[in-house]
C-alpha cells in the first residue's frame, strides 16, 4: 500500500506541477466564460435599430403599425425607393395594393434575422387587428384589454417527489444532462489517453523494468491510474470553481434586463449557427432564473461517481493498450479503436437518450458499464426517482463498479506481460491470450 501511495504521489505531483497543466486549467474556464460573455455582449449590443418608411397607398393600416423592439415604422409622405436613404430611413416597405399579400421591403442592406422576424410579426399583428375590427367590428381598446388579461400560456412542469410537489424544468434538465454527459465523454478521452501515454513513456524509457523490480506491475498500473484520476478530479473541480466564479463576475457586468433581452433574442431566432452561440448566452440567462429547480446535490454526487468510475473503468483498458504498444505510436491507433468505439457509441446514444430519457434504449444502455457513465448522466437531471427509478440508478452503479473490477483484472494481466515485451507488434489476439492464460 505504501508503494502504491508513492506511485500515486509521483504521478499526481509531476503532472500537477507541469506548466501545461497549470495553464490549461486556468485558461480553459477563462476562454469558456470569455467566449460566452463576448457572444452575449455582441448579441445584446448588436441589435440595430431600423426605421422603415411604409408606403401604404390603399391605406390598409390607417397609418399605424406598432413599433417593435428593433424596428420603428413611420408613414411619411413622398418617400419612395429612390430617396429613403436621404430622408433617414433604413428601408422602405411597400404594402401591396392587390390581395396577394406580398410585401416588398427595399433596403440597402439585409435586415438581421431579429429585425425581419419583428417586421413580419408586426405586420401580421396589424393585419389581424384590422381584420378583427373590420369584419367583427371589435373595438380596438377592448381587444387590447382582452389580450392583456389573457396572458400567454406558460407550461410549468411539476412532479411529486416524496409527498412534495417539485417544479421541473425540462430545458434545464436537458442542459445539465447534455453538459455532464459530454463532459464525461471528453474527460474519458483526455485522462484515458493520459494514462496510455504514461504507460507508453514508462515502457519506451525502459524505466518500467527498474520499477517492476521493486513493485508489482499491478501496483504500478493502479498507482498511475489513481494518480491521473486525482489529477483529473483536481482539474475538474478547479474548472467548476473557476467557471462559477468567473461567470458570477461576468454576470455582474450585465444588468438583469440585458440578460433577459439576450434570452429573448435567442428565442426569436429559429435555427442556424448563430443560434448555438446565442443559445448558450440565452440559456445562461434562463438557467439563472431556474437554477433552483434542479436537485444539485444528487446531480453533482452522481456526476462525480460516474466521472470517477467511468474513468476507472476505461483507464485500465487504456493502460493495457499503452503497455502493448512499442515505440511506434501508429500501433496505438489500431489498438485503441475497440476502446474508443464504445465511448463514441455512448455519446451517440446519449444524444438520442436526452430527448427520450425514459425510452428503452436510454434505460438499457444506462445499465451497461461501457455506456452508463455517459448515458446515465444524461438521464439523471430529468429526475430521480421520477425518470430514473432508484433500482435503475443503483443497478447501474453496481454494474459499473463490477465492470471496473473486471476491466482492471483483465488489463492487469495484459499490462504485466506487455510492459516488458519489446520489439514485435502486438495483436488483439495475443493480448487476449495474455489476459486469459493461467499463472
Amino acid at each position, binding site marked *: 500500500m505504501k508503494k502504491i501511495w508513492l506511485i500515486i504521489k509521483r504521478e499526481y505531483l509531476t503532472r500537477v506541477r507541469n506548466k501545461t497543466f497549470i495553464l490549461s486549467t486556468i485558461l480553459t474556464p477563462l476562454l469558456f466564460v470569455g467566449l460566452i460573455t463576448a457572444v452575449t455582449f455582441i448579441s445584446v449590443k448588436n441589435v440595430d435599430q431600423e426605421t422603415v418608411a411604409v408606403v401604404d397607398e390603399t391605406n390598409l393600416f390607417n397609418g399605424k403599425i406598432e413599433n417593435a423592439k428593433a424596428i420603428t415604422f413611420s408613414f411619411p409622405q413622398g418617400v419612395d425607393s429612390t430617396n429613403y436613404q436621404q430622408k433617414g430611413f433604413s428601408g422602405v416597405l411597400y404594402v401591396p395594393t392587390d390581395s396577394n399579400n406580398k410585401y416588398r421591403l427595399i433596403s440597402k442592406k439585409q435586415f438581421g434575422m431579429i429585425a425581419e422576424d419583428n417586421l413580419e410579426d408586426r405586420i401580421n399583428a396589424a393585419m389581424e387587428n384590422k381584420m378583427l375590427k373590420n369584419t367583427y367590428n371589435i373595438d380596438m381598446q377592448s381587444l387590447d384589454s382582452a389580450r392583456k388579461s389573457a396572458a400567454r400560456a406558460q407550461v410549468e412542469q411539476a412532479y411529486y417527489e416524496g409527498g412534495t410537489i417539485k417544479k421541473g424544468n425540462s430545458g434545464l434538465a436537458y442542459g445539465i444532462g447534455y453538459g455532464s454527459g459530454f463532459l464525461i465523454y471528453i474527460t474519458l478521452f483526455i485522462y484515458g489517453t493520459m494514462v496510455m501515454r504514461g504507460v507508453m513513456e514508462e515502457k519506451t524509457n525502459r524505466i518500467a523494468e527498474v520499477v*517492476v523490480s*521493486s513493485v508489482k506491475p499491478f501496483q504500478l498500473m493502479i498507482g498511475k491510474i489513481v494518480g491521473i484520476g486525482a489529477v483529473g478530479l483536481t482539474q475538474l473541480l478547479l474548472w467548476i470553481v473557476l467557471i462559477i466564479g468567473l461567470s458570477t463576475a461576468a454576470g455582474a457586468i450585465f444588468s438583469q434586463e440585458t440578460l433577459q433581452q439576450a434570452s429573448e433574442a435567442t428565442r426569436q431566432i429559429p435555427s442556424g449557427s448563430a443560434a448555438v452561440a446565442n443559445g448558450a448566452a440565452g440559456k445562461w440567462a434562463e438557467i439563472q432564473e431556474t437554477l433552483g429547480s434542479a436537485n444539485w446535490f444528487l446531480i453533482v454526487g452522481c456526476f462525480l461517481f460516474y466521472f470517477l468510475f467511468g474513468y476507472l473503468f476505461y483507464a485500465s483498458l487504456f493502460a493495457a493498450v499503452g503497455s502493448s504498444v512499442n515505440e511506434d505510436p501508429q500501433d496505438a491507433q489500431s489498438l485503441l479503436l475497440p476502446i474508443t468505439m464504445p465511448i463514441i457509441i455512448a455519446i451517440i446514444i446519449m444524444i438520442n437518450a436526452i430527448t427520450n430519457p425514459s425510452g428503452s434504449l436510454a434505460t438499457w444502455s444506462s445499465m451497461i458499464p461501457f455506456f452508463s457513465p455517459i448515458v446515465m448522466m444524461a438521464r439523471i437531471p430529468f429526475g430521480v426517482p421520477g425518470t430514473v427509478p432508484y433500482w435503475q440508478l443503483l443497478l447501474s452503479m453496481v454494474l459499473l463498479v463490477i465492470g471496473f473490477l473486471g476491466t482492471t483484472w483483465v488489463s492487469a494481466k495484459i499490462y504485466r506481460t506487455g510492459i516488458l515485451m519489446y520489439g514485435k507488434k502486438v495483436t488483439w489476439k495475443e493480448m487476449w491470450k495474455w489476459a486469459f492464460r493461467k499463472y
Partner: protein
Amino acid sequence: MQLLELKNLKKYYATQKAVDDISFSLKEGSIFGLLGPNGAGKTTLLRMITGIFFPDEGEIIFNGKKFNPLNDNLFIGYMPEERGLYKKMKIGEQALYLAQLKGLGYADAMEKTKYWFKRLEMETWWNKKVEDLSKGMSQKLQFVITVLHQPRLIILDEPFSGLDPVNANLIKDEIYHLAKGGATIIFSTHRMEQVEEICDHIVLMNQGKKILDGTVQNIKQEFKENLFSIQLNETPDEINSDVFDLIKRFDHKLTVKIKEGYNSNDVLKYFLQQQGIIESFNEILPSLNEIFIKLVEGTKNSRQFVKVS
C-alpha cells in the same frame, strides 16, 4: 555461505525455451559473470532472479530461504541492460523516489542519495532532468540508483556500455568496493575482457542452457591447449623436436604446442641445447573470448524459433 541458489530453473515461451534447466549457486561477496551470446536467455534468467518473472519450474533460494520477490527485492539492486529513467523528472527526486519504492523511508533514502551523489561527484545534478544528461552521465545515475539501497545482491546488465574509460574505471572501483563490503554482484555481459578482469566465477549460457561453470582460473586451465611462447636472441633455422610442434614463428618469438606426454621442461631442455639464449618463456592460456567463441561456435548464430511442447 551461498547467497543465491538456482535449482533447475525453467522458463519456456511459446516458441523458445528461454531458460532450460539452469542451476548454479553464488557465494556471498563474490563477483559473478553471466555470459552468453545474444539471445542466450540471460535477461530472462536475470528477470527471474529479480522477481519480475516467475519461473515455470525450479526454485530460487535467496539467503537460505525460498525467494519471495515482495520482501526480498529490498535486498536486490537491478540495473537492466536498457537503461530506464523518467526523462522529465528531476534527478534528485528520481533517485529518492526509486529508493523509496525499494522500501527505504524518506529520511533514509535522502541520506543515502546524498551520500552517493557526493561520492560520485554528482551533487550539482540534483535539480537537473535526465534529458539534460549525456549517456555516460545517465549511466552513472543508473548505477547509483541500483546500489543506493545497499542491496546484498547487485545485478548489473552490461554496466560499462557507453562509459568512457575514466568513468568505467570509477564504476569498476565502486563494484570492487561493494564486493569488499559484502555485496554479491552478478554481471551479465558479452564483453569478455571485462569479465576476465573482474569476475571470480563465471557461468556461460547458450541457447537457454548452462554450458560452462567455474572460476576464471579453472576454466582457463581446463581449456588450455599446452601452448607456450619462447623468445630467443637468435633462432635456429631448423627446429625439429619430438617434444613439440612449432605453431608460429615471428622474428625471434616462437609459439609451440607441447605434445601429449611431455611438459614444459622438455621444451626448455631442447632449446637449452640450441645456440640461442632464452629471453622469455611462458604459457599461453586461452582468453575467455577464445573459449567463448570456441564453445558457441557451431551453434547457430541466432536462435531459432521452435515449437515448445
